[in-house]
């Protein structure tokens, strides 16, 4: 009888140990799966996100009087040579000049002032108020980039990079 009781106790004890082992096993399985998932997300998203670190902006200068092609090229080449500027285009017939640049390196007001030093052009920085934008049909307040997922993506991207 005593022997039987002892065996019963032993079996219960063994069961507990087995359960603990299984738990540890499952937990490590979960942990490893998670680590692999994070590594996987990192490796598949990297290619698409690294270019986003450098925020770029576009600016436009409108010329009221006609600028000929020699003058336009002078302005274009000058702005293109400025630090952080990665693209320029002068639409000569319409007198519209656009350029894109890295925001941490250039500022449209500074560029405009520099352009004005090249020649005293009758020109202005093209801007559009939020109200005008709305009148044109779009609503800047509804920009998708302000959604929770966009913020989360930006945060995770920053973290991973």
């Amino acid at each position, binding site marked *: 009888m005593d022997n039987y009781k002892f065996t019963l106790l032993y079996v219960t004890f063994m069961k507990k140990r087995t359960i603990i082992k299984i738990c540890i096993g499952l937990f*490590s399985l979960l942990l490893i799966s998670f680590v692999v998932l994070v590594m996987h997300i990192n490796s598949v998203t990297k290619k698409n996100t690294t*270019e986003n670190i450098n925020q770029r902006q576009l600016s436009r200068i409108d010329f009221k009087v006609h600028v000929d092609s020699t003058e336009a090229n002078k302005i274009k080449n000058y702005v293109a040579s400025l630090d952080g500027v990665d693209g320029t285009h002068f639409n000569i017939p319409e007198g519209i000049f656009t350029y894109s640049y890295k925001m941490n390196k250039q500022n449209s007001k500074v560029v405009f002032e520099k352009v004005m030093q090249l020649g005293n052009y009758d020109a202005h920085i093209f801007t559009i108020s939020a109200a005008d934008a709305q009148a044109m049909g*779009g609503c800047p307040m509804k920009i998708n980039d302000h959604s929770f997922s966009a913020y989360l993506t930006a945060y995770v991207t920053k973290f991973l990079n």
Partner: protein
Amino acid sequence: MKKNIFLLGACFVAMTLTISSCKKKDDGPAAMTVTPQPKPTLYERVGGTTMTADPNNTGQMIEKGRLTLRSVVDSSINVIAADGQLAKYFPVLFAELGENPKNTSGLTALSKNFTDFMCVATGSKTYLYTGLSMTETHDPARNSRMGMKANSADFDKFVGDIGTGLAKNGVTAANNKQLVDDLVALLYTTEEAIVQDK
């Protein structure tokens, strides 16, 4: 000791399971059904998957094909932004340009999404387009960044501006007519979805 071996075993099984399941999804059935392509894809023709240094991001590498397409997209965005006829479609993008622009990511996002789109459209398997569908993107009711419905004349002007963007990167009808024609033909496959003012 026994416990350690058991744990090690569990870890090994877990690792094998996760890694092998990952692999299967990535290049299992798809890889088997790919038929050999007689002609190189447009993506290959503009540079393909060969890695090269990224001039815009020091210390980073980029596929040559993507670099070409990104340069064309960025040049074209400048041309389109300087196009008085098309300005009315871009109220939000233009509202973000100011004397002291706020840290908005509109241009960065547009450049990235347009480049992703062109990579996928030309046949890249590396990149993924995660933006809206062409119908949704160009429907002012569903995309607040789109000022109004586009008409067919403005679509032609837009494609012409991309042609100017291509020329800014050294590709013209005079020196590579086939490539220009094929890219323009590719752009025109989206006309049905984009031109919504019919």
